[in-house]
């Protein structure tokens, strides 16, 4: 049996992969990895690896269930998520279609990007995003958000800012009310798979709001996506959210660097 975070973290203030509470895993990313698509990206957050490609904006398909009326005000975002059978510890045979987990990720991504992108520029068209999870080692949704952002930037689809996602957890089960005087639990940034399985965590994605007016702050951020599947006492949410938002900021800078670096090349 491997060690667990909730036992050893209070003793050493180190997580099971050697990180401190506020450290991200190593992020590596490239864009334009697939010349056949309009835009594409590869992103690895630790051992979580995602490939993403974007097609479109293209003309909406005929014979659509909505009879072509969909997208009359702007482009429709379609997301398709495929988690490879070899992505997790146990090899799963998937009968082609999507399972619950990938379905949920897909619908979360769809609603996040549908509202995030400037879709009104492309009425009657479809932007389709394909996400392939090659390896899942925690924070899959956050990594997928980041990969999609990169691929959409690569495809040249206008958006107000980079949408960056990150996870934040607590270093214990956090099921009883937080004691402000005797704070024993630390928030953890960017949880890995073993931490996801043991601890409560949330996924948050933020976008930077462009500076408005002379007093506009460049660092203003807007939370555009927030999900949580685990149970945690509500008194801890604020801490977790603050840490998650801070992580998004760090990730945005990394994504920014990737984009700028690749255009220079």
């Amino acid at each position, binding site marked *: 049996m491997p060690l667990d975070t909730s036992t050893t973290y209070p003793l*050493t203030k*180190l997580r099971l992969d*050697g990180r401190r*509470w506020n450290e991200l895993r190593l992020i*590596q990313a*490239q864009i334009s990895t697939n010349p056949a698509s309009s835009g594409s990206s590869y992103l690895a957050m630790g*051992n979580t690896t995602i490939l993403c490609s974007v097609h479109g904006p293209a003309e909406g398909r005929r014979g659509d269930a909505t009879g072509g009326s969909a997208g009359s005000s702007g482009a429709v975002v379609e997301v398709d998520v495929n988690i490879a059978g070899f992505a997790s510890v*146990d090899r799963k045979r998937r009968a082609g279609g999507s399972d619950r987990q990938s379905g949920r990720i897909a619908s979360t991504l769809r609603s996040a990007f549908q509202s995030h992108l400037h879709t009104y520029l492309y009425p009657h068209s479809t932007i389709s995003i394909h996400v392939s999870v090659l390896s899942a080692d925690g924070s899959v949704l956050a990594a997928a958000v980041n990969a999609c952002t990169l691929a959409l930037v690569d495809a040249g689809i206008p958006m107000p800012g980079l949408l960056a996602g990150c996870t934040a957890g607590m270093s214990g089960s956090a099921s009883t009310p937080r*004691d402000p005087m005797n704070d024993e639990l630390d928030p953890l940034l960017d949880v890995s798979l073993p931490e996801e399985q043991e601890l409560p965590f949330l996924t948050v994605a933020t976008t930077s709001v462009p500076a408005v007016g002379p007093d506009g702050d460049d660092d203003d951020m807007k939370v555009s996506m927030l999900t949580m599947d685990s149970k945690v006492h509500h008194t801890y949410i604020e801490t977790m959210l603050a840490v998650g938002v801070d992580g998004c900021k760090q990730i945005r800078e990394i994504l920014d660097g990737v984009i700028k670096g690749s255009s220079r090349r």
Partner: protein
Amino acid sequence: MKSLRRDFSGDPSTANVTSKVFVRSTKSGKVQKIVRELYLRQDIPCSSRLCTICPSVAPTDANGNIVPFVLSEQPAGTTAFPRGHYIVPDTNALLNGMDLFEHTGAFYDVIILQTVLEELKNQSLPLYNRLLALIKTDEKRFYLFFNEFRLETHVRREQDESINDRNDRAVRTVAKWYMDHLRAVTKSKKEKSVPAIVVITDDKENLRKAKEENVTALSLENYVSGLEEADRLLDMINESREAREAKEARGELFYPEYYSMSKMMTGLRAGNLHQGVFNVSPYNYLEGQIKVAAFDKPLIIMGRHNSNRAISGDVVVVEVLPKDQWKSPSTKIVDEEVVTKNDNPEGEDNEAVVTERERRALQEEVRQAHGKNLEGRPQPTAKVVGVVKRNWRQYVGTVDSTSTGSQTSGRRQQNVFVLPMEKKVPKIRVRTRQAADLLGQRILVTIDAWNRDSRYPTGHFIRSLGELETKSAETEALLLEWDVQYKPFPKSVLDCLPSEGHDWRVPQSTDDIGWRGRRDLRDLLICSIDPPGCQDIDDALHARKLPNGNFEVGVHIADVSHFVKPNNAMDLEASVRGTTVYLVDKRIDMLPHLLGTDLCSLKPYVERYAFSVLWEMTPDAEVVSADFTKSVIRSREAFSYEQAQLRIDDPSKTDELTQSMRTLLHLSKILRQKRMDAGALNLASPEVRIEADNDEVGDPLADVKTKAMLATNSLVEEFMLHANITVAAKIYSTFPQTAMLRRHATPPPQNFEELINQLTKKRDMRLEVSSSGALADSLDRCTDAENPFFNTLVRILATRCMTSAEYFGAGAHAESEFRHYGLASPIYTHFTSPIRRYADLLVHRQLAAAINYEGEDGRATIEGSITRNRLEDICRNINYRHRNAQHAGRASIEYYVGQALKARSEKLAADGVDSGIEEDAYVMRVFENGVVVFVPRFGIEGVVRLEDFVLPSDEALRAVEERRELVTRRESDFDPEEYTLKVSDKGQQERSVCVELFQRVKVNVSSVKEETGRGVGKRRVRILILNKKK
């Protein structure tokens, strides 16, 4: 197309990222390959107070705090390491010597590696938990070093290197790094002050390699030999695995092999095998019982071979034996020390699992069982095929003097038998170098293993408690046996006490924050009624007449939750202790003295915080309304039960306080009647009270008194019950899942079968067990005009047929299962003794939250909430502690009675007579070779063997040794249907003594010193059945 492979070469930030790859297999047999990332870093501190670099880089938590450095700057030295040393143990060192690491005399400043902790967790979860506890305490200075994450100490497994070798290499690497690191940081200081790093490992290969690499490494044994008290410490090492393996190779196997885990699991699922807790009969060490779901009656496990190395308390898997081997429970008393007196602990070669003597003891059993088949009494028997969980603990015992060799003078190691005090546990073979010193001492040992090749379990010595029969040793033995936490409170707990100490007062001004949410009840005439000499006064009462003719009755309980905040050190300590344990001459407190006997205690004449339950009652004791509030009270008087009774009975007293006590008494009688009408049971337990007033002159036995029940006892009891029930309903309505409640399950009717049978046969009395009410009525009818104690005896026996009451979280059972059988209440909890029970403290918090009390800091509502898991853990612990506390209390009384008898006989011995004392006793159980009698005067029950029957031919009472010889001549005629036993000398049936169940007999009680066997030196209460009949 670009390659998407992760390329670490170009990026400098990736230099520290590596991965750990390992393969594991799951329970279902799947093999998984796990790949984990590792971020290597250089800011993991060495945690030595000598270090000048690490404090500046150590990782911080979210609040910016650094974990304090633990390793002392001046670690203890030994002869080999005069400059002091830090210890780096290997996994096998911890596996073999955890007791040593916990020892308070040595093993300070220990560096526990992540590698070692992880390996230990894989090998033994209990040891892992003990190690974690050690790391968490400050005193021992254990430091958990995450070596795998430190760049310098990270070790990659090489091609063809076994995991074991890699881990050993990791340990050596750390030792080397620590040496260099400490040398570097202390360069400015004198070279002398650098402590040595000592690796402790029992792996020969590792020792060799360490030598090559210039790392100081010692085997556990060699290291300990260099310490002071080496002899004592050496005995604490587990029998080394190598020695065990060597023996196994010789292939002398006495016991059948256990089934494999998967075979057991399949069998359990298919219903062929059963799982349960193995329980050894208190009268026959060769017979065990196991309660499983598939059978109504417990399965019987007969003999050493079938019990197959299981020890009482283990969770085992059993297989039911074919029907022709079924039998009824034993009717014979079999004591281990008598049967196996002459076993030799050294000689293994000529051992058989079942000795001839044991076989004889058992054969009689089987023959008898077949004779009784007519009645359909035999019960299914089973054999143990595997152990799911060992429940071994540390055992208190004595070295069997007959097992020590003749040459005890030298320091040579030898095997001795240790006889545990607990009769259900077999003797333990222990290797020791100090056999001579240990004779006549109470010692603590633990079991390490019980292998197939050994008749008895092997264990090792932990420490000596002191001379036999000294008060301190016997008291400590008793506390250890019942797992009572008796160590003084650590500093961290005492730090949680109010800083004012004994000078703490209820704030004068009612505007003070302490008064927030509290009602001022200082003008009420409140008094407390407790046993004499009570210091921790939990409860106080008052009653007053209201203008509308009804009464206001209040129960005021010490507000402990005001002082004990959840999850601080004091709260955690209290939750572990669970309850205060009362011994005859000692009280082991749950809460520190300051709180228990002063600040919380509702002492008279001073203001105290309280939690009050107030009812409005009609004169017929119907409750009109109930109200709960935190309050401030001032008790007017603290009465003892007798004082209160006298005051109530004294017609000249007409003051208001006495009047209110009379009102309380009146109402309590009505409440009691109502409860009895609802079917509450009036149970009895054999309790005596000891008044230790230490008068040297009088008869020592005069202190032993049976508990008298005064009306004032039941006054207090009724209102406490009523308060508990009212509170239970309130917290259940607020916390339907997590309310802390107490229930007493309805006992299954088959539990009473034997008692019903016995009563019908012997007295022609019927016991109705369909409901508690019916049982209460039928118990009332079980009387014997000539024998007033008979009714109590039946009640005692009936109580033993029942299940015990237990704490539980409301979510754990359906509402219909909440019933308290004994009290005939649909819901119940404990609220009234928070000073001495942890459950009550939790209930206080829950009630405070339920009435929206905010407290000084507005957090009282938060304090009331608890998760179900935590609640279940707490319930499990306090149920266990509660049971143990009762046993410990009883054992203490038993010990005291023995001592009193001894003191008496010593006094009388001056006159040359050692005659014991004559008392009435009642026969509780009849066996083939003895009976169990109960002596109400002393509240003790004891076994009377054949030789202890005084036949008409015996004139004088003889000495123990003489009596022992009698046994060969004695003959008995046992009638299991009629529960009679006729004892006579062989061939002289005409002069016999016949006893039957429930009979009143005259016995002679004396205290004798055991010369051999389990109780060596311990006083045993000897009971002789006298010939004189009334």
